[in-house]
């Protein structure tokens, strides 16, 4: 009985240890930040810095066009997202250009490259089977992130507006469609493909944007309602303050094409987050390194462009134009770090297995020449000897 409890206790210990799992896996593993973090020395600070791999920017003297330097496309990640309007087939897509709409710019199925980090107002008209229906959805085109860069370089974002969406809009409902790239753990197929979340197909209380953000990386959001933005004499549409602006008639069917103008930033309010500061570093292979000179071709050292006490550009949490109210700004790095002490004496043992066995070097040579001995009359050379 005593052995039984001893065995039972051992079994419980083994099972608990294995149930954790992490300990067994972590024992011989080493971790470093992922590549995206290694390419940047810190939050909102552009690379490179000490120990930072591969800059995300083209070195000076080289035009910032794609693919010019090894890894160039990373420096010029796609700045546009190609939207592919799949249907309904025959639907015309237009967009807002300032105070007017450019109509009939694309007919579905069709594509257009939208600049990223902006919101556009589209005009969907001539929808087959929905005579008289014109919809003015907004399209948020998200910026490229590390997770979506490769996908957006190679794929268009498919957008199909189906009958269910149109029915919802016509019955005064608001439809939100989110196009996102699922994380690997949410991918069901071995091949990467975008997925779409629609607000009308989610349960009540679920935000499709939040849900898509949880499952992956959002690339575009389309929001549709039945508000008419071209009512004559309107006061809250394109014409502001009750004044009719000059309306430029742009019609794609007449061969006129005008690119869309964003109606807003990617952010709901506020401006862009300032870009990371580029401090200098190595250029491409075979090219001399370059340096940013503070105050000449780089911001003055020690002159932060925002009020963060670390002296680096940060998120604009201090509103411009107001007295700074921040009294303390502390960032604590709580990462457990175990990188060992510096090595002062290195010993490397190398060994061939099996070992090397070759003939030993020669250290003694005995060389004997045996010459024939002839008596007179036994040779014919020289002739006079005979």
């Amino acid at each position, binding site marked *: 009985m005593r052995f039984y409890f001893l065995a039972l206790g051992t079994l419980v210990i083994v099972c608990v240890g294995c149930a954790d799992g992490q300990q067994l*896996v972590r024992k011989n593993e080493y971790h470093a930040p992922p590549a995206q973090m290694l390419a940047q020395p810190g939050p909102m600070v552009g690379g490179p810095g000490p120990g930072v791999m591969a800059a995300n920017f083209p070195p000076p003297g080289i035009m910032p066009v794609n693919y010019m330097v090894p890894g160039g496309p990373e420096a010029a990640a796609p700045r546009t997202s190609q939207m592919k309007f799949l249907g309904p087939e025959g639907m015309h897509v237009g967009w807002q250009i300032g105070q007017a709409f450019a109509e009939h710019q694309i007919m579905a199925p069709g594509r257009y490259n939208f600049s990223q980090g902006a919101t556009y107002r589209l005009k969907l008209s001539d929808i087959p089977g929905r005579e008289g229906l014109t919809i003015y959805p907004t399209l948020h085109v998200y910026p490229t992130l590390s997770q979506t860069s490769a996908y957006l370089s190679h794929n268009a974002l498919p957008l199909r507006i189906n009958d269910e969406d149109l029915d919802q809009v016509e019955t005064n409902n608001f439809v939100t469609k989110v196009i996102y790239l699922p994380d690997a753990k949410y991918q069901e197929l071995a091949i990467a493909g975008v997925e779409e979340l629609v607000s009308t197909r989610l349960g009540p209380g679920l935000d499709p944007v939040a849900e898509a953000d949880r499952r992956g990386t959002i690339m575009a959001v389309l929001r549709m309602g039945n508000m008419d933005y071209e009512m004559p004499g309107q006061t809250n549409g394109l014409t502001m303050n009750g004044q009719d602006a000059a309306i430029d008639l742009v019609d794609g069917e007449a061969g006129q094409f005008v690119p869309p103008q964003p109606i807003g930033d990617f952010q709901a309010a506020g401006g862009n987050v300032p870009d990371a500061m580029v401090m200098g570093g190595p250029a491409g292979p075979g090219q001399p390194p370059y340096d940013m000179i503070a105050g000449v071709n780089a911001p003055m050292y020690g002159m932060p462009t925002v009020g963060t006490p670390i002296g680096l550009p940060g998120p604009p949490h201090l509103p411009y134009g107001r007295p700074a109210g921040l009294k303390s700004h502390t960032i604590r790095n709580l990462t457990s770090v175990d990188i060992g002490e510096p090595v002062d004496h290195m010993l490397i043992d190398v060994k061939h297995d099996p070992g090397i066995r070759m003939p030993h070097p020669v250290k003694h040579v005995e060389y004997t020449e045996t010459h024939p001995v002839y008596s007179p009359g036994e040779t014919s050379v020289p002739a006079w000897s005979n």
Partner: protein
Amino acid sequence: MRLSLILTSWLALAATAAAQNPEDTRRFYPLDHQQPVGRAGRWQATIYPGLSSYSQPVRIALPSEGEVTFYQGSPQAGVVTPAPAQAGMQVGYVYRVKIAQMADYPGVELYPTIELLDRLHPPTELKDKFPIPIELTTAEIETALNDQMVTKVIYLEQPQLATPTRQIDGKMHTEVLEHDINLLEAADRRGRPIAIVRLGGRIPDPQSPQDEFFSTSPLTFIPQP
């Protein structure tokens, strides 16, 4: 009782081991195939500075007849070559090519990219005879046409780990792995990663001929196969 305990413990350990990723090499890989295009090549060119100056022949084959267009800048500078087509590419660079005029896909144009990670080491005079083979299959083309993305990592097999299967009609041995597998790690486990090929359905912007789409990486035109 002792035998039973040992067996139970072994089963628990076996279950834990089975739960691990079979492609996991238990080494840290900061890069994977989903990184932004060009990052892996750039790291490689930075780590091995001499690599990027070598012009490595690359041969692109299509499932049937077709054309391959190589670009050196704008789309106006394309060089149209019947498939299979080959050109010299440099390690660390990314190349966008166009495949078109395919017999099975009339009117279809696709623009895969090729990111070169490493080179081969044939005898110098036979360099053009041993290009990196890139074979685009019917299934991959149809996947791209369905707005999905195909990512392939081409690797040079390690002789001791080479798959003991015969190449039929010279077709490369291909494995399809799950999406959450790091293809670079899986290729490194089997040999030496040479190139990443990405294929999707995006096409250049017809309204903007100077699209950011095309590559300007240095090309060398070599005798066709």
